[in-house]
Structure formats: C-alpha cells, structure tokens
C-alpha cells in the first residue's frame, strides 16, 4: 500500500498564521484547511490521521440512559453530536453533557477536559459550557483558532461568552463541528 503523502497545509501559505509553539507539537500531520480557499480535502486530514488516530479519551455514549433527576433547567438532557472532526470515526457520535456531574464542561484537545477533541487545530483548553439558570453559556478560552457559532448563514466567532440554545451548531478551530442537542 502506498504510504499516504504528507498533506499540504494549504494553497495560500501566506495566509496561514504561524503555529504557536505551544500548539504546534504535532503528533499527526497538520490538518489541511484554509477558510478562504478550497483545496484541501480536509478530509485529507481525516484520511491521513486515520491509521494512527489518537484514541479519544472519552467514551461516546450512543444510548445514554435518561436520568431526569439533577438536570438543570428542568429541560431535557444535553448532548454534543459530532458533525465533523478529523478522527472520522467520531462523526455522528453523541456525547452527554452532564452538568450534574461537571458543572463546567470543558472542551479541548488535552485529556483533562470533559469533552476531549483529538484535533490538532483545537487548543488544549479550547472552550467551556456552563448552565446558568435556564441558560447555557459557551465561553471561548482564548483558543488559538477560535470558537464559532453558526447563525444560519455563517460561523460567527465567539469573542468571549455567548448564550447557546439547543440545535445550535458550534465550531471549534477549523476542523471540528458539533451540534448541541437537547432530548
């Protein structure tokens, strides 16, 4: 089998910001993506990473058992569903957001997060979700590649903290998209 060639970073090199040292230790080939260009099947990133993709630290729970007690807001239970991420086996997987277990749901690349995303473009501590009364708040933790909320037309960058409602689509960095759902 031919060995996958290293993925190109992007077509327009000059538009690519230099990697921060602390974000740049790459166990895996760079995720190819450039928002303003086409290129790159970022799929490529997925494809290349696949054979040695890091195991996610969490266990997605496809069929969680409902536990109505202890849920905030008296509404249903929340989940994050992966729409896309370089570790392609995670696509479609559903992660319960349990505020009764973790009042602050931290999201990032490093293993101490509640939701671990094995994506080089996601910062170690990227964002967090908290429940405040009946509201869910999404906060960007000064991530390198940004946290975004889809407004129905485009992904708007979150500058600090923003309220998010069920069915909102969120983007972390350039290659990971999740949908917040409530059931």
């Amino acid at each position, binding site marked *: 089998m031919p060995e996958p060639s290293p993925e190109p970073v992007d077509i327009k090199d000059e538009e690519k910001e230099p990697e921060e040292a602390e974000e740049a230790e790459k166990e895996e080939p760079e995720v190819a993506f450039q*928002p303003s260009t086409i290129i790159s099947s*970022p799929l490529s990133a997925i494809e290349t990473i696949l054979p040695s993709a890091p195991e996610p630290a969490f266990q997605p729970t496809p069929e969680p058992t409902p536990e109505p007690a202890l849920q905030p807001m008296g509404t249903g239970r929340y989940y994050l569903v992966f729409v896309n991420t370089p570790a392609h086996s995670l696509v479609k997987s559903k992660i319960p957001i349990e505020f009764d277990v973790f009042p602050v749901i931290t999201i990032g690349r490093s293993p101490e997060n509640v939701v671990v995303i094995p994506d080089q473009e996601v910062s170690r501590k990227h964002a967090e979700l908290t429940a405040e009364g009946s509201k869910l708040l999404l906060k960007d933790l000064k991530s390198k590649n940004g946290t975004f909320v889809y407004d129905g037309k485009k992904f708007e960058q979150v500058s600090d903290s923003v309220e998010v409602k069920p069915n909102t689509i969120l983007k972390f960095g350039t290659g990971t998209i999740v949908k917040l759902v409530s059931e």
Partner: protein
Amino acid sequence: MSANDRALETLELIGKAKEKMGRPLLESRNVGRAVFVGDTHTAVDVTQTVLDKYYADADLVVFLGDYVDRGNTGVENLGLIASMFLEDPHRVIMLRGNHESPLTNPYYGFLDEVTEKLGAASYDGFKEFFQAMPYAIVVNDYLCVHAGIAANLDDVSEIAALPSPDLNPDNPVAFQLLWNDPRDMIEGFVPSVRGEGAFYYGSDVTQRFLQDNSLKGIIRGHEVVDGFREDMDGKVITVFSSRYHGASAGILVLDHEKMEQVRI
C-alpha cells in the same frame, strides 16, 4: 510493457475516452445488475478486482470519481478504468471526482506522478480529460454523484445545463456536487470544514430533493469510511473503494431491488 509505455498508453486512452465522455449529466439508466465503485485513489488492485470479478455479470459499472492522488499509481488506475470504458462505453460510467482537478492534483501527488512518468507538459492532457468528465447519472432511481446534492439545485435535470468544460470546476453547483457531504443531524446546507464553497447537506433538504426528483437515494463516495456508510435512513450511501486509508475497500452491487455491500 515498461512503466513509461503504460503511462503513454494512459495518455492515449484518455485522449480517446474524452471524446465519448458525454455531457455533465448522463442519460438515466435502468438496469438489472449494477456495480458502484467509490473513490479508488490509485488502488489499481481494487479496479482490477472489479474488472475480473464483477464486470462480466454487470449491466453497468459506475465509478464515482477520485481515481488519482494519494498514491503513485494514479496514471495506471485511470488508464485501466479508461480502457474498460473504451471497451464498452455503454456499460462503464466514469464520473468526475473532486480529485480530477488541478485544485487538488498539485497537493495530493498526481501532478508529481505525471511529471515523473510523463513530464509536466503531459498534465495538460489529463486536465482536458477531467473537464470533459460527467458529474452525475441516475441509475435505477439512485442519483450517482461523487459527493452529493448542492444548494440551489432543485431538479436533477439542471445538472445537464452546468457549464462545460469547467476546469476546477468553478460553478458553485458543480463544485458542490464534487465536494459536499451528507449529515443527517443537520438541516439545510451548513458550511463544511473542507473550505469555502463546500457544504454539509442536511436531512430535510435531502429528503425534499429525493422526493421532488422521484429518487430512491444517492450513491456517492468522497468521504473516508470503512467500505460503506449509510445516512438519512439508508437513502444516502457512501462507498469508499481505496486502500490508502487502511480500512476496507467496498463496492455496491445492485441486483434489481437488492443492494449488496461487498468488501474486496
């Protein structure tokens, strides 16, 4: 035959095949037995297996694009499929993928491969061929296309009116036919991480498109999967037929109403 002779033969084959590729949308077909092959990406052995074991019995073999890039036998793979096509253009369909394009070939290996085997100037011959390739065909009420449906595409017949030739392609609908991905947890079209102009297509728009066009489903490649993946209650089937990703190479065999998933 030397490697160089084989490469030269591919150039000659695609030169001939180009003349017979047809329009952006091929005429719909209804057949008894059809075989659908997803992205092969230089996996000549997969193409050869299709030829050896599945071609003889098939009324139609549909290759869903992405024959080159991600390996160093794209020239041979393309040549083999083109030779099948030329042998019986009515039985072999060669659709275009997003890797049949100068948008990807400089970055994923095919341009280097052509340059090494035939010289950089020969790449022009491949570009000529790629831009002559069709985007889609409806087979037994399944839309066969490399990636999927596009925003602003209401009727399948509109594919026939897409500009041709379109080298990259630049037409937004044509581009999306080659770059979009299905996601049943979303609605509408949501920008994809693949880059500007590419989208995820959700369950509502897919159901509506299928209904409006009286289609049973969509057969596509484009995404790495372990042979197959079904979305939208099985109405959108992804088939991936390569080797480089380290998982299964799958093909679909449709025998009248029965769709079988075969790993090769």
